[in-house]
C-alpha cells in the first residue's frame, strides 16, 4: 500500500509538472498566432466598455488622507530626459519652458510654468498604481486638464488628447493618450507639485499628467505639448502610447 502510494505521488508530481509545462509551452505557440492574439485583445475592449458603462463619467478615484501617504514617493522609468533642450530648461529652472496646447483646437495655447501655477489648482492625494504591481500614495497639485481644453476650445472632430514628452526610450519619444471622458475628468490634472513641493525632476518636472483612473504608465512625465487629435493612427506606431507601441501594453489601462 505504501509503495504503490509513493509511486502514485511521484508520478502525480512528475505528470502534473510535465503536463503544466507542455500546456504552457503550447500556449506560447498559440500566442505567436496573430489571430489568437487578436482574440486576447478583445479582452481589453470588453473591459474598457464594461468599466466605462458601470462607472459614472465623473466617478472619482479614491482620495486618501495625509496620514495614509507613502513615506517616500519613488521614481520609476526615466528619471532624467537626455535631450540638450531639457537640460537647458532644467538649468534655467524651467523659466523659459512653455507648454503648448494645440491640434484640433480653435485657440492654441502657449503657457509658462508661472501661467499654469497662477491658474485655479486642484490638490489630490491619490494612489499611483503601477502596472508591475506596486502602489505609492502621493499628493499632487496641478491645473485641471479640462480647464485648459476648454480654454483652447476643442474642435468637434477631437476624440483623443495626446501628451508629448521630453523623455525617450532609445530613439522613441515618450507619449501617451487618453479619451475625452478622462480628459475632462475632474481629477485629471497636469501636476506641477508633488507632496507640497515643486515636482522633482525624477517624477516628471516641470509637468506630468495625473489620470487617476488608469495605471502608472499613462501618467506621462515631462509633458511638453498637449495635442487634440481625431485619431491615434498617425502618432508613433499608432497604438496611442510609447509602451503600447513598443511592447504591446493595453491602451486602456483602467485595469
Amino acid at each position, binding site marked *: 500500500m505504501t509503495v504503490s502510494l509513493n509511486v502514485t505521488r511521484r508520478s502525480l508530481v512528475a505528470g502534473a509538472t510535465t503536463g503544466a509545462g507542455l500546456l504552457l509551452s503550447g500556449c506560447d505557440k498559440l500566442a505567436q498566432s496573430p489571430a489568437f492574439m487578436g482574440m486576447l485583445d478583445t479582452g481589453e475592449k470588453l473591459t474598457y466598455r464594461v468599466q466605462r458603462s458601470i462607472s459614472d463619467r465623473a466617478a472619482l478615484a479614491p482620495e486618501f488622507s495625509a496620514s495614509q501617504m507613502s513615506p517616500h514617493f519613488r521614481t520609476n522609468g526615466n528619471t532624467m530626459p537626455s535631450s540638450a533642450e531639457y537640460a537647458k530648461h532644467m538649468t534655467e529652472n524651467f523659466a523659459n519652458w512653455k507648454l503648448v496646447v494645440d491640434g484640433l483646437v480653435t485657440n492654441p495655447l502657449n503657457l509658462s510654468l508661472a501661467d499654469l501655477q497662477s491658474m485655479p489648482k486642484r490638490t489630490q492625494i491619490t*494612489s499611483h498604481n503601477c502596472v508591475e504591481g506596486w502602489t505609492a500614495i502621493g499628493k499632487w497639485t496641478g491645473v485641471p486638464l479640462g480647464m485648459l481644453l476648454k480654454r483652447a476650445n476643442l474642435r468637434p472632430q477631437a476624440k483623443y488628447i495626446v501628451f508629448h514628452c521630453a523623455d525617450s526610450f532609445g530613439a522613441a519619444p515618450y507619449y501617451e493618450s487618453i479619451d475625452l471622458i478622462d480628459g475632462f475628468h475632474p481629477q485629471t490634472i497636469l501636476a506641477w507639485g508633488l507632496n507640497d513641493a515643486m515636482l522633482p525632476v525624477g517624477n516628471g518636472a516641470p509637468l506630468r499628467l495625473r489620470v487617476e483612473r488608469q495605471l502608472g504608465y499613462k501618467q506621462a512625465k515631462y509633458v511638453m505639448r498637449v495635442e487634440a487629435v481625431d485619431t491615434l493612427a498617425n502618432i508613433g506606431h499608432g497604438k496611442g502610447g510609447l509602451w503600447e507601441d513598443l511592447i504591446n501594453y493595453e491602451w486602456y489601462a483602467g*485595469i
Partner: protein
Amino acid sequence: MADTEGHDTAGLKGGDLVKRHRISTRLWHWLNAFTIFTMIGSGLMIFNAHPHLYWGNYGTNYWSVGTPFYEHPWLEITSHPVTDPVTHKVTVIGTLIIGSLHINTTGVLGVSRFESFPGWMTLPGSYSLAIARRWHLFFAWVLVLPWVAYLLVSLFNRHIQHDLAPTRAELTPKAIWQDIIDHAKLKFPKGAAALHHNFLQKLAYLSVLFALIPTMILSGLTLSPGMTAAWPWLLWLMGGRASARSVHFICMSLIVGFIVVHLALVIVVGPYNEIRSMITGKFRLPREKTPTLTPAQEPAE
C-alpha cells in the same frame, strides 16, 4: 441507465454504469481546467514584474542605501548573483522570504531578476508583462462569466441544493470526524453511496465556488484603478490595493492546493472511471467488498 444527479439511487449497486455529471458541470469543469492554467501561468508572470507582496494601501519596495523607507514586504522572492572567489563562476541564489523565514530556493524560485517564478511555470515562458496581462485579462472574463452562468444554472437545476449543500446528518461532529478518518485512510464509499459527495468533498467544492473564486475576482478588481473609482468599497473590503494583491496571491495558492489534492484523489480513486465520468458523464459504481452489504453495514476496520 439511471440518471442519478439529484435523483433516487435506490436499487443501484457496485458495478452499475450510471449517469453522474450533468453537461453543465462537465463543460464548466473542462473550460476551467484550461482557463485556470492560463490564469495561474500568466499571474505568476505578472508577479515576476514585482516579486514583493505587502499589506495595506501602498508598497513599492523602495529601498536604497541611506533611506529609512523600506516598506516591509511580507513575502518576497529574491535572486542574488554570487561569484565564487576561486573559480569566478556566478551562481544565482534564489530565496523565498515569508516574514522572517528565509527558504533557499536556488534553481527553482528566484532563478534570475525577472524569473522569480521560472519560465516553465509562467505564461509566456520568457519575461513579458504585457503578453501575460493580455492572457490574464482575457481569460479573467472566461473565468468569471461562466462561473456566474454555472451558479445560476446550478441553483436553477438544484445541483447546489441537492448535491453540494451538506445534509444535517453530515454536519454532526461525529460524522465530520468519521469523514476525516476515512479520507486519511483513503477509504472511499462503494456502490450507490459513491454517487454522493462526502462532506469534505462538498466543503472543498463549496469553498472554491463561493469563497475562493469570488475573493479572487474581488481582489483582482481591487487592483484596477478604473474599478476602485467605480466601486470604492473594494478598497475598504480588501484593506488597500497592496493587500488586495496579497489576497489575490493567497487565493491562487489555495486554488493550486485544491488542484493538487483534487488530482491526487482522482488518481487514488480511479483515474479512468473519474475522468470518463467528467467527459461522457458515465460513472461505474465501485464494487462493494461484500456484495450483500452496503458500506454503512460493513464492519468497522
